[in-house]
């Protein structure tokens, strides 16, 4: 079964050159084409099947995060069609719904509800989440007293215990210390081995090679290569190495 399908998908953004005045909005309304618009994705086609784990690679600004935001339906495509089947959990920016004045416990509850947990699920999973984060001693302290690493631990623990059908990971594997990182990566492998679909953006080549069987290479918004991770990574790294002499 196809769980993610992109058909001729493009995504354009306005270039925010300084202030947007009333005139600009009127032009938008009247449908004047925007000469300054910037294409983050251009005519992208691919389909991902149930249980596949796919890496997305490319230089900064190649359109990787835009692609993920389309998969999570946070943004609509400017053209083309995006089809998604399944419950998506996105580790896009950990702790997006967290508030510094709430305690760890309150933030877990809030974040769980934002991510779609029901009251019962949130209650049942609370202990699992806290155990995974290893933050028992600080759970009733406000989040602003947490270190950055502790905050990320908590956020990761909530998101990864959601039991998603499609897991999206955007360069968030650098969580906490070495020991906790290993734990996170183990957890992601565990999710993959349960047959879940994974879409992963990272710059850590060896990890992608062991986690993902297939890779998509984006360059300036275009899909330039789609194939086995090893081959795509080799082509990508080869190109990057030659870049300075071009």
């Amino acid at each position, binding site marked *: 079964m196809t769980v993610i399908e992109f058909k001729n998908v493009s995504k354009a953004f306005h270039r925010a050159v300084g202030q947007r005045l009333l005139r600009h909005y009127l032009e938008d309304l009247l449908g004047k084409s925007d000469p300054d618009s910037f294409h983050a994705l251009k005519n992208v086609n691919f389909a991902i099947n149930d249980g596949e784990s796919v890496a997305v690679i490319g230089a900064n600004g190649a359109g990787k995060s835009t692609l993920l935001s389309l998969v999570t339906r946070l943004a609509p495509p400017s053209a083309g069609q995006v089809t998604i089947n399944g419950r998506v959990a996105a580790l896009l920016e950990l702790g997006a719904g967290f*508030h510094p004045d709430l305690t760890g416990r309150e933030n877990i509850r809030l974040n769980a509800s934002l991510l779609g*947990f029901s009251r019962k699920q949130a209650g049942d999973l609370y202990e699992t989440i806290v155990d995974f984060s290893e933050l028992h001693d600080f759970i009733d302290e*406000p989040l602003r007293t947490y270190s950055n690493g502790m905050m990320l631990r908590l956020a990761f623990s909530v998101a990864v215990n959601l039991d998603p059908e499609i897991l999206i990971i955007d360069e968030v594997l650098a969580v906490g210390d070495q020991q906790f990182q290993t734990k996170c990566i183990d957890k992601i492998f565990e999710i993959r081995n349960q047959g879940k679909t994974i879409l992963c953006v990272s710059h850590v080549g060896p990890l992608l090679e062991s986690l993902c069987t297939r890779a998509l290479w984006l360059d300036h918004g275009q899909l330039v290569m789609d194939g086995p991770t090893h081959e795509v990574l080799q082509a990508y790294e080869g190109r990057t190495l030659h870049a300075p002499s071009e």
Partner: protein
Amino acid sequence: MTSLWNGDYLFLLENLIVKDFKIRYRNMSLGVFWSLLNPLILMGVLTFVFTKVMPNAVPNFPLFVLCGLVPFNFFTVAWNNGTISIANNAGLIKRIPVPREIVPIATVLSTTIHLGIQIVLLLILTLAFGRGINVHWFWLPLLWALEVMFVCGLVLATSALDVYLRDMRYIVESACTVLFWLVPIFYTLDIVPREYVTVYEFNPLAALILGLRRILYEGVSPNGDAGLVYKLAFTSTVTFVAGLAIFSRLKHKFFDYL
């Protein structure tokens, strides 16, 4: 665009409301007492002005003016906070596919907690001024519910517009200042020229204040001859439906503009 979010709406709404409420008061030494302070101070000031500086014939002026201040205070706080709620929660809107409508609505509903506290103050003052409980008190929950619905409608429209035009928040602020004078808070409807009375009755905020006064202050049915409650129900429903329509038209591009 169908949302991928299929979670528990009530649980989410409850958490967002509690979050707003806790954040506002967690670091305040006076806590929820602040909810009472604002209307009480304004009541004192207006009573001083309109009984000592420019005396008028309205008896029990403090109760009279509080019937206007409580709904007006809720209206301005909820409308202002609701309007900036989408832009202020940009991190959430851009990262988590929650149904967008829930953010401004939760902001309005968290303000109803303060409203509840102020209603208790208003009812205590009503009894203190020797106005007893009467059968028309049954109308009160409906009137308050209609006001909340009306504000939700307004907030849905202005919070969505605020994403595109950040000036919206200043327009709302100014509108609230203007409304303080155009709504019968410290004057009676009797002194309003006849030709404007219908306009007042179709203004949901004014209608609510008039209705409250009839129930609490005069002890009569809020409907009067003009069918006030029906007008209030009509304008509140229209505002809510229109607000929802505007919001769902504008929400698809929030991601691009935030």
